[in-house]
């Protein structure tokens, strides 16, 4: 049977029409926000690069949950860290988002705006009091009303410094810098004494650095950025001075947290932020550095250190809302957060957990010293990164900061341009 022209034309029309159909309104998965029914059914739980190190822990949690709620079955999937946001966006766009998803606040914001994240104030408000207030609020999205993920683990960390490099530069290794001014002075001295061969800092300032410096990041209405104020310009001007003196690593303009971490390991930079987890790495990978490691508090002008928050979101379109909400709560309740914190150097977001002796008593080792100090600082820590600050906005800020450091724009011009670009992106987000 020969293929007729009409059939070919029809096939072509289908090919054109299919993508066009994607321009219509999104499908309504038809989930319910009512979590009060019986906890039963099959659900899928997605984590963010946790299988490699915590397989036994999660399998145990899932088995316990299924035992507690007969008739439930949890399928656990884990995605690699690289491209996690892309995986979620592909799933979200394709309608295959798992029922329970490990997210960070910046990931949950667009999902909430697209109606894909369940409002837990409505569906699980009774659990709110179990969590630290700040942690619960971290998954609230300006422009929407509600909370869109259970807070999970928190992290923060001290500033590590290389005592040997400090001594070589004539700096007091036992009196590390405590304020921004002291850091800048030490960095300039380090660069001068080493003829620019050892930088003190390896990263350009990010949005959280501006926040920690005391810059107002967003306006009061939450609908525009404001980090181009006098304080922001002041911070960038200081960094420009450091960059010119090679006190800020010349490759900082293209650095990633991983590359700057490596520079610290090789002694190319003298200070680097980290967490309790890094101490173990130093001990194992670079014993010589570990012998010379100095630990000081995170620098902040606001009195509040920065914290990173992880959350567990429930898909608003899940067909098993009671089971999904119950499981998300189960993973993040005080008991399980505490047991997870004992597996790895993270901190629970549940009220009262940070008062556990595990987080308050030192045993003389550096690990417990860092853990206790971090737990103490977390009680009034702030997640400085605005939840609406997308990856594209981070790139805009980074590029404008780089222009200022290279002298292509003044710090004021650079921040004005960054705010303008970020505001445009914010408006486009809707």
């Amino acid at each position, binding site marked *: *049977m*020969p*293929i007729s022209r009409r059939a070919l034309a029809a096939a072509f029309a289908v*090919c*054109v029409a*299919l*993508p*066009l159909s*994607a*321009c*219509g*309104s*999104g499908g309504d998965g038809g989930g319910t926000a009512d979590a009060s029914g019986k906890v039963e059914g099959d659900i899928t739980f997605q984590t963010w690069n946790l299988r490699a190190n915590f397989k036994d822990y999660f399998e145990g949690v899932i088995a316990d949950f299924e035992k507690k709620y007969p008739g439930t079955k949890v399928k656990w999937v884990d995605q690699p860290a690289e491209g996690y*946001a*892309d995986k*979620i*966006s592909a799933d*979200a*766009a394709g309608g295959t988002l798992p029922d329970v998803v490990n997210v960070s606040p910046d*990931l949950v914001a*667009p*999902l909430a*705006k*697209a109606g*894909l994240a369940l409002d837990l104030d409505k569906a699980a408000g009774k659990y709110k009091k179990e969590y630290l207030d700040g942690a619960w609020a971290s998954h609230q999205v300006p422009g929407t009303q509600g909370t869109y993920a259970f807070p999970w683990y928190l992290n923060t960390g001290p500033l590590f410094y290389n005592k040997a490099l400090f001594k070589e530069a004539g700096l007091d290794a036992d009196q590390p810098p405590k304020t921004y001014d002291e850091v800048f002075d030490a960095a300039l001295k380090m660069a001068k004494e080493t003829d620019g061969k050892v930088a003190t800092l390896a990263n350009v300032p990010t949005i959280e650095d501006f926040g920690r410096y005391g810059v107002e990041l967003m306006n009061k209405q939450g609908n525009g950025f404001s980090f181009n104020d006098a304080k922001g310009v002041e911070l960038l001007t200081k960094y420009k001075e450091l960059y010119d003196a090679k006190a800020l*690593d*010349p*490759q900082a*303009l*293209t*650095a*990633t947290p991983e*590359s700057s971490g490596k520079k610290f390991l*090789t002694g*190319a930079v003298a200070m680097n932020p980290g967490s309790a987890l890094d101490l173990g790495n130093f001990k194992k990978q670079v014993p010589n550095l570990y012998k010379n490691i100095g630990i000081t508090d995170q620098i902040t002008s606001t009195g509040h250190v920065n914290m990173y928050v992880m959350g567990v979101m429930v898909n608003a379109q899940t067909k098993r809302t009671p089971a999904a909400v119950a499981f998300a709560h189960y993973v993040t309740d005080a008991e399980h957060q505490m047991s997870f914190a004992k597996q790895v150097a993270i901190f629970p977001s549940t009220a009262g957990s940070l008062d556990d002796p595990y987080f308050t008593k030192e045993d003389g080792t550096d690990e417990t010293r860092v853990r206790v100090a971090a737990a103490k600082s977390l009680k009034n820590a702030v997640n400085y990164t605005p939840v609406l600050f*997308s*990856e*594209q906005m981070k*790139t805009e800020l*980074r*590029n*404008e900061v*780089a*222009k200022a450091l*290279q002298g*292509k724009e003044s710090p004021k011009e650079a921040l004005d341009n960054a705010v303008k670009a970020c505001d445009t*992106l914010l408006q*486009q*987000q*809707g």
Partner: protein
Amino acid sequence: MATPTVSRIRRQLPTSPWLFAAPGLLIIGAFILYPFLSTLVNAFTDRRTLIPGEFVGLANFRELLGDDMFWIGLRNSTLYVVGVVPALVILPLLLAMLVQKNIPGITFFRSAFYTPVVASIVVVGLIWVWLLDERGLVNSLLETIGVGRIGFLSDQWLLLLSAMAVTVWKGLGYYMIIYLAALANVPRELHEAAAVDGAGAIRRFVTVTVPAVRSTMVLVGALSSVAAFKVFSEVYLMAGPSGGPAGEDTTLVMLVQRTGTGLTGRVGYASAISVVVFVVTVALMLLVLRADRRDET
């Protein structure tokens, strides 16, 4: 008289070719044609990752014209073609001529030159980042001989040049193999006749080898120019996700990735950039093929 089986085959003959081609057509339709058409349609919408778009006409293309980052991307992708293609047309030919001779141990060199082709681009990128780092092997050597350290990975132009060098280094072996096949078809008598007429090695290269492999050179030129214009991995790995200092090393495909991915990705705008990339690559192919045809006439 035809047997029943033969007559059944005859009856079905018109559809048979389509049945055989169906798996391939389905794959092409699903993974090439549909995404291509989808991109084309999206380019005229304001579609975002999670928000279905509305038709916006040429708005995305108008926005491109005023987007500095688009022009930076276009500049860098074009520079990449200009820098990489001549090297990838000429150097693999010389390399192929070098390893064409059947002398003991030559297989080792052929394999060695081909090794970068099979190496993972991520591994290759990381090795070169390590080599060219401010404190890497290359800078240590340069410092030892008194040249001083060079900011291969901190200067926007050196970064682009370094990425080009990696592309050329990694591509040499691949195109060398193509040239080896072409060189094997050059009649030995032509070289012998030219040598008898007094032609030296360079003269023989220009008047015998190059004309004999000209069509292969055109093919290599076309393939490498399209690949160079669409460069992503090398620049991404060496310049970082932000595209070098202040994004000055961003290429068009990097811009597509940065703009169109993630939960807040501007799929419509990224599709418009993709359409531009498509048009330019098709134009590049046509240019190379046209130049070839003109040379032939």
